[in-house]
């Protein structure tokens, strides 16, 4: 069997498995919008953990991080993974836990719907929907771009990136529109297990192939000794930029609407707590190999230059047994698809619940599910079109999305924790934060950032505006607030 045939067979088996999971899930998910969009708010520990972790990890981790580590060395672990291991579980507690309960009390099915009902303002719902969409679509585009490049490379160019992207989106749509939240969560268990196991195997096999851990490290040190230390004068390693990026990477995840929706689907607070206990360990298991594969790759392929994102694929091809190497691109595919499905489902549910229904389109539950499925196909078509024309690198696209999401965090937090927080405060916070961030992006080096990243000031501005906006505008209706916070 040729390498191309092997790849085709593996892809076919993989697609059949995730498709079958979608079909099985569809038997339980089409009964009601709550079942379709939030799996009946009953996800258990294992499924919830894999759904959250699978959604959290995309080609950014499997391709972007080895690429960054190739350039900057082991410091990439501290820059990203370490602070995420603390920030993500804390945000699940501080935002995810009250959001889950409040969403049940208010019968909200989407993040924007939750805040619209909590603050008694449809306009807040519209605005949040707009920002969620604006930052999620580019994030989806980078996923499709990453997967299509890997699939195209794995097929030795027999499959163009365009057709590869089309295939990935088509399969994701198939099981997402069939199985809804339950289908995507179940497939995430399979996909998450696939890419985590592959990374663990890759780590060990690559180290052995390079002559052991010490030899692999020495190989990288021989090319550039700075790869193994943290040079505080380099880019994001500079202390104020390091702190700014820590804020972004630790808080952005809770503002992914597709992560937020999965938290709303948790069966209980105890299940959420169990997930938080395991999350840091899983991050280490995935990120240490991702970073070290990039660092070792610098020793093995020192001349990649601007093609650093290729290091993961090259290391897999060169330093893994051929039978296992074929799974390398499947791991990337699994990581990308486990995020794409959640994004498509959440955006389609928001389009339905936060835009169509507030505009006066009352639908019966079955029609609501059918329209949600239709929206999923529309969103996928838009993402596919953009992936063909968007020229920026995977990392640059992701970074803008992450910074954008960070500006939403003060609103997401305060509405759940501060009763006096008002629709006016939410408006002021969302507009101010995003205006500052847009200025930072537009002005570039001319933005007066005092050594911090512009997103740091956007976050500070959004927080202050939330406070002033709430104090200076009328509070939300007391009965609505009492219902949201479960008084009486």
């Amino acid at each position, binding site marked *: 069997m040729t390498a191309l045939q092997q790849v085709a067979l593996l892809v076919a088996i993989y697609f059949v498995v995730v498709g079958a999971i979608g079909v099985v899930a569809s038997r339980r998910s089409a009964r009601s919008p709550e079942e379709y969009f939030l799996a009946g708010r009953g996800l258990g520990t294992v499924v919830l953990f894999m759904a959250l972790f699978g959604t959290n990890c995309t080609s950014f981790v499997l391709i972007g991080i080895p690429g960054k580590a190739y350039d900057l060395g*082991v*410091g990439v*672990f*501290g820059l990203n*993974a*370490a*602070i995420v*291991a*603390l920030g993500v*579980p*804390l945000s699940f*507690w501080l935002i995810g*836990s*009250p959001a*889950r*309960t409040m969403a049940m009390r208010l019968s909200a099915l989407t993040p924007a719907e939750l805040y619209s009902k909590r603050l008694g303002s449809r306009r807040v719902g519209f605005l949040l929907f707009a920002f969620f969409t604006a930052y999620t679509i580019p994030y989806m585009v980078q996923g499709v771009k990453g997967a299509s490049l890997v699939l195209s490379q794995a097929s030795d160019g027999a499959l163009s990136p365009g057709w590869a992207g089309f295939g990935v989106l088509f399969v994701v749509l198939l099981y997402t529109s069939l199985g809804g939240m339950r289908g995507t969560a179940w497939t995430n268990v399979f996909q998450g297990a696939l890419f985590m196991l592959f990374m663990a195997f890759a780590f060990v096999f690559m180290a052995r192939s390079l002559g*052991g*851990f*010490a030899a*692999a*490290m020495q190989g990288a*040190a021989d090319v550039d*000794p700075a790869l*193994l*230390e*943290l*040079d*505080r004068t380099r880019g994001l390693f500079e*202390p104020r930029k*390091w*702190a700014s990026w*820590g804020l972004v990477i630790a808080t952005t995840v809770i503002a992914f609407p597709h992560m937020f929706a999965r938290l709303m689907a948790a069966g*209980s*607070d*105890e299940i959420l*707590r169990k997930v*938080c*206990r395991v999350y*840091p*360990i899983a*991050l*280490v298991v995935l990120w*240490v190999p991702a*970073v070290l594969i990039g660092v070792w790759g610098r020793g093995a392929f020192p001349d990649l230059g601007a093609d650093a994102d290729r290091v993961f694929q090259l290391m897999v091809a060169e330093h893994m047994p051929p039978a296992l190497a074929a799974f390398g691109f499947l791991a990337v595919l699994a990581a990308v698809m486990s995020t794409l499905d959640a994004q498509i489902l959440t955006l389609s549910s928001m389009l339905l619940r936060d835009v169509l229904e507030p505009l006066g389109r009352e639908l019966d539950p079955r029609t609501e599910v059918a329209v949600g499925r239709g929206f999923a196909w529309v969103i996928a078509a838009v993402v596919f079109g953009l992936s063909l024309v968007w020229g920026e690198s995977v990392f640059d696209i992701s970074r803008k999305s992450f910074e954008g999401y960070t500006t939403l965090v003060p609103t997401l937090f305060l509405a759940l924790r501060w009763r006096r927080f008002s629709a006016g405060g939410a408006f002021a916070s969302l507009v101010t934060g995003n205006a500052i961030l847009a200025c930072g992006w537009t002005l570039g080096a001319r933005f007066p950032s005092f050594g911090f990243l512009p997103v740091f000031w956007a976050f500070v501005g959004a927080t202050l505006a939330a406070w002033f906006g709430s104090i200076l505008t009328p509070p939300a209706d007391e009965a609505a607030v009492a219902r949201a*916070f*479960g008084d009486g």
Partner: protein
Amino acid sequence: MGRRLQHACAWLGFVGLLFLHVDAWRAPSDTFRFGWLPDELGYRLVWVLLAWLYLLFVCGVIWPRESRRGGRE
């Protein structure tokens, strides 16, 4: 342990972890631990271990109490 003391521990732990994360006071080091683990990566792994212990405290003590008070259990 009383509620006030628990919250004080939670805040202290959080601030301490942030301080240790933004470790501008640490000098760069190119030495290896155990012959293969770079100092920088070893430091971060110990930091993650501390963060994990902190999270066990939060998830085991602070969060359940808060959930009961907020009617979230």
